[in-house]
């Protein structure tokens, strides 16, 4: 049932655009993967950046977090930050940071 603060959701067109970007980025990742080995050092950075981008797109548009209640962002980003913190802390403690 509608409650006064129902967020304005994007149109299907936006969804399609996002999907197109996701597909293209995945293709780029695939292409970069097979790029020459001399590029290995920057590959990691590029993969990470592209991955964060895809992640953010899905969260913001498909999960509507960009348009929705701030409370949801707090729940989700809170869990995400804590999880990242645990991962980083463990990697540091095991001296396994890449």
């Amino acid at each position, binding site marked *: 049932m509608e409650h006064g603060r129902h967020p304005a959701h994007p149109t299907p067109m936006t969804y399609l655009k996002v999907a197109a970007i996701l597909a293209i980025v995945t293709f780029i990742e695939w292409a970069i993967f097979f790029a020459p080995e001399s590029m290995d050092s920057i590959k990691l950075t590029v993969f990470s950046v592209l991955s964060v981008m895809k992640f953010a797109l899905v969260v913001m548009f498909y999960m509507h977090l960009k348009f929705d209640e701030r*409370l949801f962002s707090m729940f989700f980003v809170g869990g995400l930050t804590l999880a990242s913190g645990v991962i980083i802390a463990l990697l540091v403690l095991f001296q396994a940071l890449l």
Partner: protein
Amino acid sequence: MATIAGVFSRPTRPTGIWAWISTVDHKKIGALYGVTAFVFFLVGGLEALIMRLQLARAEHGIVSAEVFSQLFTMHALTMIFLAIMPLSAAFFNLVVPLMIGARDVAFPRLNAFSYWVFLLGAFILQTGWIVGSSPNTGWFAYAPLTAESFNPSKGMDFYVVGLGVLGVSSVAAALNFIITIINMRAPGMTLMRLPVFIWMTLVTSFLLVTAMPVITVGLIELYMDRTFGMNFFNVDAGADVILWQHLFWVFGHPEVYILILPAMGIISEVLPTFSRKPLYGYPVVVLSGITIGFMGWAVWSHHMFTVGLGPIANSVFAITTMFIAVPTGIKIFNWIGTLWGGSVDLKTAPLFAIGFIFLFIVGGLSGVMHAISPSDAQQQDTYFIVAHIHYVLFGGSIMAVFAGIYYWFPKATGRLLSERVGKWHFWLTMLGMNLAFYPMHFLGLDGMVRRNYTYPEGMGWDFWNMVSTIGAFILGFATLIFVHNFFRSLRKGEISGDDPWDGRTLEWSIPSPPPEYNFAVIPTVHGRDAFWEQKHGSGHGVHAPAGGAYDHDEGHGIHMPSPSILPLITSLGLGIAGYGLVYSFPVAILGAAITMFGTYAWSMEPATAPDEH
């Protein structure tokens, strides 16, 4: 519509045992939690007494080394997961909706589900006593002692599955209370008007929701190793067994605050009421509670100071641990500030609360001593630590639980617990507690290692061990006095009236025991300590829900969620699946199928049966 999935007809207006099995009423569920948890508290206490008998004298042969291992493991698991946590859950259930002016929790059936899953998880964890092999590695279960090759008994499987199932219960309950507190407050009850107990419930719930998955992953990995021969903790395959310790304590340290924050919340309600003053420095107390919850994530390696993480890691965790004492200290100072200048009525509830402060200071200060990583290398794994954790968990959590029981018993039952017996209970508890646990400091400093099933003569440990055992039995006796008080007062206790303590929060504005719908009219809140304001305050026109309204309106027209058997069925499936994971996979699949069936039926069942009215 009253028939669910064509099989189970929905229980309507049930009575007797059926009323308890199908209840979705938060007060009844709270009572179920409370009674179950207290029974386990007695079980855990019995385990402790057997251990204390064994240790009373050097080379005592009351139990074997193996049984002793099972006893100390199960004592910890029982007290932490089956006594203190569910006792907190009992208070959450009984009090939270009443304090925030709600008629129930956000998801009443999920609430019942949490309880039944808890009960089944508890059964799984305790199965070892029946089949003769309980978990025997300590509650921390350090790999690789838990591996199949070192520990082929089923005990560790009960540990893994039992804790996993209990985790489901905890997360479900915690999610429920997060939503309830954020979303079901009475009009006007802003976050900064929430009673501190509610705040602490909220912080605890967030900790549960985030910490439980970490241990779940550890348990899954252990299960995979034991059942499918995987390599997570297999040193020969290159595994690092310290990973288990990290996963365990990343969960385990927030868990410590999961055990103590609700207790702090209870104290923050009891002290203002009995000194007739508002909580001193409310915003700071709330903020320090949040800070403790947050910092609880940054200190876990202080359980691992002797693991050899290196001086840098040890120093970092030593410093973060020390500074967690700051918000804790703030709370203690503000509690004393609350008493200062008040009109302190030394009934049993505030006595337990003051006892809490006293004992918690002792435990907190020895905690700071453990934070000093270099000297902790001497204290780690000795009775000095055992003393510390009992000062914070018994002197902290359990004292607060008793304070809470004496405080809210009249609200839940309409009768007062006997003050005369209560005073005996309090003073004997204080005596037994300090006699049992204080000498453990000495034993630790004299080099007695914990978890030893016995010790030789000539080490200088005999005297204090005997004293400690005597103290433990005094403590056990004090608990029996409480049980007597509880049952006697339930039947013959003095009628309390709605508001025996001149309470400050909304639960005291409604009848004792509260009607099923709690509030005939949802109150509107105009400040902190809403009910106190209404009674003694500055004349805000607070809607008076008490009195006449209840006499005339028997709750007609208030739709409450209807009883449902489905939470029990769904959780029964989980329990069966749990035993299946230990014994036989086809049974696990059967259990999963039952759970799935229950979930479908549940989702098709309306919260309120339409034909009820």
